[in-house]
């Protein structure tokens, strides 16, 4: 018990500099962080991935998945309530004990880092196939990761400010797809319920792994102003993301015929490519530029969280140097990883299957331990009396 208190104190002292950072973020900025960390690479190929399973009912899977994610978010919300002023990296040792806590922290950092690798690889893959056929992968990786490091090395307040402005890009991203409705045929998704309940539920897996990002609030929650720290911002943010994803899936489902959608890897881009206006052509390129901002924000927030984790473990007050070191390490890893279609997909599959442990499994177990501990402490207090 004493050792935990001691550890607690040292962490608090070490985190003193960061404490000034904490409690600074407002409600709306919290919403935009959630949106920006959820919307990322997955949005492009989501329709293609869920159609083989859920057929025309894929859009129902997206809504269902939004509800499942909300459940996960609720677990995280209650867990964060047990230690309102600490990040996961700070409270994990308190709840699970020193060694297990350290293990949890390290595995989370590994999870964040591997997510970063996967996102960068997928981003590279899309750009390589759509615009930059000749540009070496590593150049695109350097550009996007260095840019992320530049933002992520700042305090969360500055990052958050960037995020709240860049929500405009997400809205533009949706506005750009509206003209595609000129070729729409609602009959492609009828009759509703054609795939059957089991297939609709099965397809939620693909959606779940595309709207990851909420688990970062295990780390970011203490930075939000206490009086603004309401459940509503997590709800609003998640609903916003779910609505956008549903819109994207629905649009592509009614524009492309069922068999066609199985062939096209990025239906939303493909749909825009075919549009032609008087002055504008190749709308997919506009979409890709806006989408890059969404990918960038996802990378930034994962990078920031992992840098924060490493600096907490190393007991460093500032995370700037750590951020750049992480990026250099990631670039080296990315350089040596195989980059063909199958291995990227395999890696993405492994990481996304593991994600359930980190988004729901560990938070749930921690919450269970924390509440049991509290229960025992109450009993102890009663018996002592």
């Amino acid at each position, binding site marked *: 018990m004493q050792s935990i208190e001691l550890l607690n104190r040292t962490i608090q002292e070490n985190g003193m500099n960061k404490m000034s950072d904490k409690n600074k973020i407002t409600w709306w900025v919290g919403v935009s962080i959630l949106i920006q960390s959820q919307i990322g690479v997955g949005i492009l190929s989501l329709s293609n991935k869920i159609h083989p399973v859920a057929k025309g009912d894929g859009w129902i899977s997206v809504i269902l998945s939004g509800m499942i994610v909300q459940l996960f978010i609720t677990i995280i919300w209650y867990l964060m309530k047990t230690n309102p002023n600490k990040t996961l990296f700070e409270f994990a040792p308190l709840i699970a004990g020193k060694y297990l806590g350290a293990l949890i922290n390290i595995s989370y950092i590994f999870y964040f880092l591997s997510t970063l690798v996967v996102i960068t690889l997928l981003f590279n893959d899309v750009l390589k196939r*759509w615009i930059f*056929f000749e*540009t070496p992968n590593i150049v695109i990786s350097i550009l996007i990761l260095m840019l992320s490091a530049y933002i992520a090395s700042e305090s969360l307040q500055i990052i958050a400010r960037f995020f709240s402005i860049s929500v405009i890009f997400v809205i533009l991203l949706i506005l750009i797809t509206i003209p595609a409705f000129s070729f729409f045929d609602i009959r*492609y998704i009828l009759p509703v319920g054609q795939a059957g309940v089991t297939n609709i539920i099965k397809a939620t897996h693909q959606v779940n792994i595309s709207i990851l990002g909420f688990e970062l609030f295990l780390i970011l929650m203490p930075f939000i102003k206490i009086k603004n720290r309401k459940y509503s911002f997590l709800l609003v943010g998640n609903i916003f993301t779910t609505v956008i994803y549903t819109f994207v899936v629905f649009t592509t489902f009614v524009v*492309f*015929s069922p068999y*066609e959608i199985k*062939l096209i890897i990025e239906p939303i881009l493909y749909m825009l490519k075919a549009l032609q206006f008087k002055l504008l052509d190749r709308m997919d390129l506009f979409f890709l530029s806006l989408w890059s901002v969404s990918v960038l924000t996802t990378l930034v927030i994962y990078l920031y969280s992992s840098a924060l984790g490493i600096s907490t473990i190393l007991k460093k007050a500032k995370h700037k140097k750590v951020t750049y070191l992480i990026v250099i390490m990631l670039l080296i890893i990315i350089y040596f990883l195989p980059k063909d279609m199958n291995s990227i997909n395999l890696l993405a599959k492994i990481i996304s299957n593991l994600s359930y442990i980190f988004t729901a499994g560990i938070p749930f177990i921690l919450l269970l331990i924390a509440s049991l501990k509290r229960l025992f402490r109450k009993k102890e207090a009663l018996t002592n009396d």
Partner: protein
Amino acid sequence: MTNTKVCFIILSLFLLTGCWDQHLLKNTRLIYGMAFDLDAENKIEETIVIRSIPINPDTGMANEVVSAVGDTINDTRKLINEKISGEYGGSKNQVVLLGSELAKIDIYPFLDNFYREPLSPLSAKLGVVQGKAGDIISLKEKDQNLIAEYLTELIRNGEEKRILPIQSIQTICTHMFDEGKDFGLPLLQFDPKNRAVEIQGLALFDGKKYTENFLTPDQSSIMMLLSGEAKSGTEFTYKVNEENKENWVYNYVSFQVLKAKVKKTISSTSSNDFSVQLGLDLAIEIDEYPKDHLFDEAYAKELKTKIKKQMGEDAEEVISLLQEANSDVFGYGRDLLAYHSKQLQGNKLEKGYFKKLDIQSKIEVTIEQAGVIY
């Protein structure tokens, strides 16, 4: 600013000078139109037209036509690249013509490359040519117009006049893979004697194959009214009288559709048997009717019934032509899948379902306007 920062900026300038993915206009030969044909040995012959700028600026723009024979589209591209002075640039292509012999087999293999390459223009127009498509491209110019521009304008004009459905390479793809809807492509005809190209009608497709049946422009207009694609602007000229032998123009009436409303009800008679009740309400405007007398109500009514009768006959002919070709341009298969899937055997469309459909059409006509005179 510290020295390291300055150094970093200067050094990074070296990295920013180049780009891997530059497509310089001066190195590319922009292709404006292409045609695919089947040659005698069952190989693909591709004919392309490139716009070139001659050295003497007074002569204006000119065209260069190149063709090559190969096994696949990419194979012919490679051969073409050996014949032209610069890189093959397909990104500005406006029109793709397919020879009828080739369209009869399956058109997807010839378009696959367009769908696969991110740089290819999916909004280009497609057409089927009765005979050899390369001959039209080889015209180079058609009365002062460059051939690719001429062809796109020809097709676009047909779309505006509601003779042809509005389509591009991309919209075709959606229907090619749709078991419940077929499509038609503009059918062009080339008259080598007069060097003339004209729209012969709409070539009907069954799945990915050209059925060798086609609708004439008038029939195609009626088809688009029946399918609900054309809602206004379609023009017709009908012969409504036989009386006037000397002044034969008096026998005709020209009108255009102001509003078209389609009502369809699909009912299933027994499992896998369906009937379609197709109602079409037209509000028309008389554009040309030398005989006048429209102020006479009884006379106007008579004219109306005559138009109605002829249109009904035409519609029935169109429907029987479509059923003969098994080309479901109306997309009734989609309707069956979407709203009547329970009555379908195994929730799937059977082959040739369109031929089996019992389609009853009923046309109502009202004369809404007659210009500024009766």
